């Protein structure tokens, strides 16, 4: 699942699940949209945030809702607020009411709807565009109930979402129909473009997609023909200038703390012996016989028992 195209966005979090660089990859390090290899979707400066085994439903929900462990680096967080437009683009194998992750687990439409509601309550988005390209895709947004969500799906319930074409050299179907035509549409869209979402809804008609696309705008406040595609794809950053001067004290508290923490080095510095393999006498960590090991315990118990038997025999002989 890859999020984000050629445009620059504030936060692109990629969930990528692939083995494009395996031993059998014909063109390692490349992902093409077409068998004529015109657009390398996996550009040479790509960065991926979640890959391989990290692509799980749990991680996905955690990223959306912001419930991540404290050590999670900034690049793996979705640091959005109530002024951010969020695009969630999902593609993969799915069915009615679910989408599969890793061929091992699946996310349901209810879970996704609740995650979006949590995002809304935590003010993690202003507007959200949800695009899903999978079989019976419409079922995935049917349960959404949070405001400001616009959803697009590649197929209706009861319909399959089909792939575009096969690359005979690798023998695999390489791109889904909806994604293919969406990419074609977006490739002709520049950051200053005035194209609207209504135009985006028109892509991939039934004779191209073989499935009928679905759109849901009842949760969205604006009209699709007045919403620009660039509101979600390729954020055009606006900078607010201020006439007020901001005074930064030369020694901020953070810096003070870092200087306080500096310990003065004591003693001298030197290299240490690199190879200890021939200096056994220098090894401080020589294996010591473990006095509390099970073997020695048994030994002690056995000797105690033997002593007892001997004493008993002596007493018996004395009495006898």
């Amino acid at each position, binding site marked *: 699942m890859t999020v984000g195209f050629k445009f620059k966005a504030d936060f692109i979090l990629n969930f990528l699940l692939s083995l494009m660089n395996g031993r059998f990859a014909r063109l390692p390090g490349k992902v093409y949209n077409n068998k004529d290899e015109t657009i390398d979707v996996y550009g040479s400066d790509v960065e991926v945030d979640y890959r391989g085994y990290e692509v799980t439903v749990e991680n996905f929900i955690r990223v959306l809702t912001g419930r991540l462990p404290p*050590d999670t680096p900034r690049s793996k967080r979705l640091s959005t607020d109530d002024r951010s437009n969020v695009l969630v683009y999902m593609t993969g194998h799915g069915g009615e009411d679910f989408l599969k992750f890793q061929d091992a687990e699946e996310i349901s439409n209810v879970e996704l709807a609740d995650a979006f509601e949590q995002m809304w309550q935590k003010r993690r988005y202003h507007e959200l565009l949800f695009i899903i390209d999978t079989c019976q895709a419409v079922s995935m947004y049917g349960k959404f109930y949070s405001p400001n969500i616009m959803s697009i799906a590649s197929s209706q319930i009861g319909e399959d979402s089909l792939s575009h074409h096969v690359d005979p050299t690798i023998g695999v179907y390489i791109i889904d129909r909806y994604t293919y035509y969406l990419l074609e549409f977006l490739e002709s869209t520049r950051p200053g473009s005035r194209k609207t979402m209504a135009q985006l809804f028109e892509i991939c008609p039934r004779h191209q997609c073989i499935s009928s696309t679905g759109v849901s705008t009842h949760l969205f406040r604006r009209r699709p023909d007045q919403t620009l595609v660039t509101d979600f794809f390729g954020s055009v950053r606006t900078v607010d200038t201020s006439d007020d001067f901001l005074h930064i004290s030369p020694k901020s508290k953070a810096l003070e703390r870092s200087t306080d923490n500096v310990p003065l080095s004591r003693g001298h510095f030197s290299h240490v*012996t690199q190879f200890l393999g021939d200096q056994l006498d220098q090894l401080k960590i020589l294996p010591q016989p473990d006095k509390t090991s099970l073997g020695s315990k048994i030994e002690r118990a056995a000797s105690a028992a033997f002593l007892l038997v001997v004493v008993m025999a002596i007493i018996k002989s004395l009495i006898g």
Partner: protein
Amino acid sequence: MQKNMLGLFVLIYFAMFCTCNGNENYEESLKLDMIDPELVYGFFNFTTTWNYEHWFAPRHYKLFPRSLGQLIQKYNIAELHFTMTQGLWRYKRWGFPDASSPTGAQLWVWFHKNTEDVDKNWVGFTNALSGLFCASLNFINKAVTVTPKISFRPVGVVEGGETDNTFLRYGTLSRENLCTENLTPWMKLLPCGSKAGPGALLNPSQLHHSKFLSIGLHFLHDCSEGGSCERRHVKLEQHISVVYDLRTLNLMPNFSLLSLFKKRVKPACPLSSRSVLMVRVIEGATISPALTESVGGFSVLNLHRLKSDSNVQVKGLKTPGVTTKLNHGVTNHCYLTGIGLEGGFVCSIVNHNNREIPIIFFQVVPWFLHTQVHTLKVVSRQNDIISPAWISYTPGKIRESPNIMELIVRLPSDSITELSFHFTKGFMTWIEHPPDANHGFYISPAVITTKTNDLNISKELHGSVQHIYSEAILVNIPVPDFSMPYNVICLVCTVLAISFGSFHNLATRRFHKLSPNEVSPVKKKFLSLIERFKSRKKKNVDESLASTAEKSS
């Protein structure tokens, strides 16, 4: 006139940087060597050094990457070694690389001695590094992390000249792939990125068309001069090792930088004090354009003197007969034995020298393989049992820590030594298996540490020891039938539904005795029908009887 102006500008430019970066120094180089007529080995080295006093705690960064410097400060790191590798370095055929690395990701860190909670810092650092390099390094958890005792010593200088192993952490992830997304952030740490000098040749998609590719990042403290170590600096080394197979790339008689990297070499990074391209070719081949300078068998091109983008060609390579380069040192090959739940691990270590060599053998075995240390045997090919000079064994704890084995073995001269032990495969709960459980699990590569003197090699980088990594071994452990819980639920539900239905029926229905005289209406109707039929038949018979009686009468 224009040329003069440009020259002046360049001079001012350099003067400016030379004065500004009095404490910092950046050097870059690319070494192209031929392992044999078919294999080209490229080694990119980018080194930044930074003098400091008392303690390394910078606030302003110039050449040193801030993103890394801040992590080093935050997590109190004294020394850091990180490599990511695709492919396996073939020590036997290719000799020893400038920077050795195992397949997958490897990370080892020495923390400063004033670190309060090493484990906490280690977890934080692996997470931060995973964000920095787009790799799943956060999977180096406590079940993977170990503290080697003697195999990984600090390469740089150490305070007081004494080490304490409790401040060392080591972890490997053999499954971790090296791909474009890891190269991108790695290149961003370079002062000039991939814009100038040897860095301009780093073309991610082309680098992956190789037999072996490894990126490395090493941070350490070092002394400017030996002895008292009054003046110290930190050193950041970034390496890329790449091995191209010319035959598979169809570049056999002639190859060039352009055909290997699909890019031309650019003039030096202006921030660098030294920027060179060094090429060594095998006998019979020629370099074009001819490079006049020569250092240690390498033809050198000073990139500071380069005016524009240029290409270096190597011509006239001859198809080899059998010219495999034999490594006269130590090689190691590990493999698995055993069937079913019983397994064995064997490492066959070859000493090509004609004298006894001490080595350190280090192996981490995951917790789900229960090693039997009493089966540990070190036998030379002549069936002489060798007793290790020193053994350290830490048994693993289930789901907590792996089994760690560290031995010192004296390899006899010209010998093959087999080190082996047995293990039993443990079971994992079905939820602990990864999505592709049938792929198997990796045992991280065995590490052999030797002295470079014993291998007859001279090493510019990383001191006097050489780490030799074996293959990462794939082991299959029993995989449950993942559809089983689903099947069980379906079956149990069906059985319950059927039995519950009939039991419910039985339990809730009220039974009462029917009186024998009482006949159901259906039965009554049926009986009356039969009665009627019978009576009609009787009537007919009576009538016929009557008629016959009339006839007869």
